[in-house]
C-alpha cells in the first residue's frame, strides 16, 4: 500500500521536475535541477544522534552532548558533500543503438566533471530499469552505457534518466531527473515461421541459399579465426601483407523479395514481425534481398547498411519517421 503510494508520489514529483526543463542533448547539473533529501538511513542517523543527546541530558555529561552535536554537524556538512557530488556534472547524450522490440537498446552517455572534481558512486538509470553505477575519480570524462528495454517498434525514448548519489555517508540522497533527446529505433519483434513463397527468382533453392560460396573469387578479406585454411591467400602472406582469406561467392543472380503480401493470414504487426524474422535470417545467409511494403520499395541488396535500411522501413511502417 505504502509502496504504491510512494511510487505514485514519486512519479508525480518526477513529472513535475521534468516539466520544468525541456529535453536537451547536453546539460550541466545546477542547483535548479538537483534535489536533495534525507534517506531512511539518514533519519536513523538523526535518531541515533537524538538518543545520544538524551544520554547526555540524563547523565549531565557534556562530552556525550558533544558527540551528539558532532553527529548533527556531520549530517549538515554531508548535505553539502552529497550535493556537490552531483553539481557541475555535465551529461551529454551521445548515441542510441537500434534494437529489437523486447530487447534492450544501448544508450551511450558522456559524463564530464565540471572542474577538477571527483564524482564518486553515481547511479544512473532509466525509469524502472536497473541502475548502473559509475564514478569520475581522477578522470575528467567517462562514457556510460545504459540499457533500456524497447516495448514498441518505431522511434522511442527511454523516458526520464535518473542520476542519484548517496555519497559520502548515505545520509542523504541527491538526485535529478532529466529528459534526454535520445531516441532509439526499435525493430519489430521477430516472428519465426512461414516459408518464402516459391517461384520468385530462385524458388527451388528456397531458404537454402548461401551467400558464401566456392565458385568465383570475389576478393580478399582479413583472415579471422574459424575460416577455412583452404581460403588463406598465401601469395599475399608471402608478400608480407598479412593474413588474408580469399572470398568466393556463389553466383546468385537470384534476388529475393520480401513482400507485404506473403502472409495474408497475419495482421499488420505480425506481418512486420514475420518480415523482420526473414530479414534477419536472409541477412545472416548473405543473400541479396529486397523489401516491398505498401508505399515502400527497397531494391535487393546486402550488407549491414542495407539490412538496417530494411529493418528501419519495417520499424517505421505506418509511423511518423521521427
Amino acid at each position, binding site marked *: 500500500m505504502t509502496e504504491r503510494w510512494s511510487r505514485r508520489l514519486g512519479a508525480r514529483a518526477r513529472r513535475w521536475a521534468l516539466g520544468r526543463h525541456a529535453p536537451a542533448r547536453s546539460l550541466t547539473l545546477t542547483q535548479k535541477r538537483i534535489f536533495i533529501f534525507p534517506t531512511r538511513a539518514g533519519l*536513523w*542517523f538523526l535518531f*541515533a*544522534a537524538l*538518543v*545520544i543527546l*538524551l*544520554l*547526555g*541530558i*540524563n*547523565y*549531565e*555529561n*557534556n*562530552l*556525550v*552532548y*558533544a*558527540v*551528539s*552535536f*558532532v*553527529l*548533527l*554537524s*556531520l549530517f*549538515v*556538512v*554531508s548535505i*553539502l*558533500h552529497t550535493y*556537490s557530488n552531483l*553539481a*557541475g556534472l555535465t551529461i*551529454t547524450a*551521445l548515441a542510441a543503438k537500434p534494437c529489437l522490440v523486447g530487447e534492450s537498446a544501448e544508450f*551511450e552517455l*558522456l559524463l*564530464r*566533471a565540471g*572542474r*577538477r*572534481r571527483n564524482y*564518486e*558512486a553515481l547511479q544512473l*538509470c532509466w525509469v524502472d*530499469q*536497473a*541502475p548502473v*553505477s559509475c*564514478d569520475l*575519480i581522477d578522470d*575528467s570524462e567517462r*562514457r556510460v552505457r545504459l540499457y533500456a528495454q524497447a516495448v514498441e517498434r518505431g522511434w522511442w525514448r527511454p523516458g526520464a534518466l535518473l542520476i542519484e548519489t*548517496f*555519497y*559520502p*555517508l*548515505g545520509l542523504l540522497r541527491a538526485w535529478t531527473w532529466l529528459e534526454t533527446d535520445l531516441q532509439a529505433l526499435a525493430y519489430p519483434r521477430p516472428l519465426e515461421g512461414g516459408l518464402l513463397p516459391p517461384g520468385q527468382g530462385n524458388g527451388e533453392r528456397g531458404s537454402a541459399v548461401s551467400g558464401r560460396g566456392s565458385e568465383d573469387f570475389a576478393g580478399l578479406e582479413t583472415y579471422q579465426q574459424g575460416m577455412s585454411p583452404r581460403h588463406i591467400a598465401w601469395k599475399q602472406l608471402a608478400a608480407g601483407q598479412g593474413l588474408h582469406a580469399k572470398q568466393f561467392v556463389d553466383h546468385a543472380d537470384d534476388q529475393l523479395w520480401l513482400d507485404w503480401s506473403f502472409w495474408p493470414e497475419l495482421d499488420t504487426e505480425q506481418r512486420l514481425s514475420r518480415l523482420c524474422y526473414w530479414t534477419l535470417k536472409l541477412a545472416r545467409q548473405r543473400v541479396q534481398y529486397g523489401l516491398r511494403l505498401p508505399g515502400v520499395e527497397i531494391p535487393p541488396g546486402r550488407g549491414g547498411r542495407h539490412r538496417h535500411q530494411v529493418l528501419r522501413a519495417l520499424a517505421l511502417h505506418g509511423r511518423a519517421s521521427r
Partner: protein
Amino acid sequence: MKAVYQLTRPALLWQLLMVVAVLLPHSLRLPWWLPLMTFGALGWRLWVHLGRTSFPHWSVKFMMAVTAGIGVIMSIGRGNGPELAVALLFAGFSLKLLEIYKRRDALVLIYVAYFLAATELLFGQSLLHALYIALVLVLITAALNSVYQSERHPDFWRPLRASVRLLLPALPLMVVLFVLVPRIGPIWYAPLAQEEARTGLSDTLSPGDVSRLTGSSDVAFRVQFDNGRPPPASSRYWRGLTYDRFDGRRWEAEADRSPFESPRSDSGTLLRYNMTQEPSGQPWVYALDYPVAAPWPLRMQANQTLRAPAKIRQRMDFALASRLSSDSFQALTATQRARYLALPEGGNERTRALALSWRAQDDSTEALVARALALYARAFRYTLTPQRLGDDSIDDFLFDTQEGFCGHFASSLTFLLRAAGVPTRIVGGYLGGEWNPYESYLVVRQFEAHAWTEVWHQGRGWVRVDPTAAVAPERIEQSAEQLLSSQPEFLSDTLLSPVRFGHIGWINTLRMRADALNFVWHRWVLSYQLRQNDLLQKLLGEVTLWKLALGLLIPFSLVLGWVALGLLRQRRPKTKDPVDAALLRLIARFESRGLGRKPGEPVGRYAQRIALERPDLAPIIGTVARLYEQLRYAEGGEPQLHRAYLAAVRACVRQL
C-alpha cells in the same frame, strides 16, 4: 529496482577496525569473556572473508546470543543499569559481526558503534578519553563512508580522508552547538555506579595509626578566587569537618544537628571563590576558614563546616565565600559544652593529672593554651614516621615518644584542654595549596591534609590553635611539599609522581601546565552547564531566543559557506600527461576559432573535420592526430615519437 550491495573488502576491513576501536576501552570494564567472544567473532568473520569457512547457521547465532545475554546478566547483575545495558549492547554488537554481509547490516553496526562510543564517556571524561573517542569517531565515519564508496574503485585509505574532510568542518559547528544549546536537567534519575574508596580525609582520626594521606599526591580540590589572588600561606586553612568524640584511641566526627548562627558583625573582607572538589566518597565540602554561608544544596552545620546532601562521587563545583578572620561568637549551649568537654571514663591518667596541675596554677584559657604550646615547642619533634603508641596513646605521646605529626599534636592538645575544662575540638581539613600561575588557581593535594584544634574562649568564641605550628612552624609558612620531602614516608604511594620532581624546573612547569589544562577542561567542558549562563550573557548580553538563533545561524553559515567554496570552487584540471596537456592546449586554440571538439569525438575524426574546414592545416593536423594515436595505442612511448608529436603540436599552433 533495488540492487543489493555487498560490502567491498575495504568496507569490511573498516568495519572490523571500527569494532576493535570502539570495544577496546569498554573491554577493560566488562567481564573477561566478552572481549574474548568479540575477538572470536572477529576472527570468524575474517575467516569467512578469506573463504575458509561459511557464515554460522542461524541456530548457532541464536544459541550464541542467548548464552551471551544470560552470561552478561549473571556476571554484572541487574542492579547496574547503565553497565548492564552497555554490556548487552556490546555482546549484540560483537555477534552482529557474524552477520555483516550487506550494506544494511553494516549500517546497524555503525550506528550502534556511534552510540557505544558515546557511552564510553559516561565512564571516563579525561582529556585523553575525549581525544580517544574523537579518534574513534573518525574511524566510525570512515567505516560509514567505506560502505558507500564506489564499488568500482574500492580503496582502503580514501574513506579515512573523506572522514577527516567531513569531520573537520563539523568540529566548529559542534563547538557552536555546544556553547549555545541550553542544558536541561536529567529527565529521569539514572545513577551510575562508581568505584568506592577514594583517598581523602575519613570521618575518624586515630593518631596511633600512621596517616596514609601523606603518601598520595592526588588532587583534593582546586580553588579559583574571584579576585585572582590566593590568600597568604598562613591562612590557607581548609576546613572540612570536626572530630568531637574520643573513645580513648580514635576521634570521631559526630553530626551536630543544631543550626549554625551567622556571626553578629560582618568584619573582615569577604573572599569569594569557586571550589572544584574531586570525588571523595564523603559528604563534606572543604571551605577556607571561615565560611560564611552555604549555597544550595550545601548545608552549614553548627561547627561551621559545609556538608553536601550526598557523598561526593564526581567532581563538583561550588561557589563559596569566606572570611579570613573569625568573628563567629556564638554562645555554647549546655549540650554543646558537654560535647566539647567529653572524655572517656578512664585512661591517659598522666595527661589528666598534668592538665589538672596546670589548671590549679592558672585556669585562664589563654594561659593553658600557652603552656601547652610551650611544652610542644620545647621537646617535640615533627615526623611522618613516629613510633607506634600503646593503649594510653595520649600519655605515650606526651611523655614518652614525643614525636608525631599534626594528628598527634591536635589530639593531645584537645585531650589536655578538655581535661583542664576548656571546650576544645579537632578540625580536619587541609593546610596549604600550590598556586598555578597559568590558570590562576590553587591546587590542594592529599598530602596537605592537616588537623588542628579550635579552643572555646569565653567571650571570643572558637579560636584556632595549631599545635603543629609550635613544633614545625615551617609547615604553615612553607608548602607541605618543602617540609615533607625530606621524610621517607612522603609520597611513598606515588613514586613517579611529577610532584616528587617539583624541584626540577622544567618538570615543574610541565606539571603545572598539565594540571592547568586539566582544570580548564573540567571548568569549561565537563561542567560547562554551570558556566553557560554567565558565558552567554557575556557573549550576547541579554539572552533571547532570537539572539540564540542568530548566534547559531551566523557561525553555521560561515562554516558551511567555507565548505561549499572548498567543494565547488576547485581549480581546473592539471593534466599530468604532457601528451594530453599539449592536445588540450591545441583544442583550446581551435575552440576559440569556433572549431571545438564535440563531446566524445575521437581525435582522428576531429582532425579530419578540421582538415575540411581549414585545408591549409590539413597536413599538420593530420600528423598531430596520427602521432597522438600512435603514442596512445603503441606500446610504451618512444622518446622520438614524443618529441615529434610535441613539435607537430607547436608547428600547428604557429600555423594557426
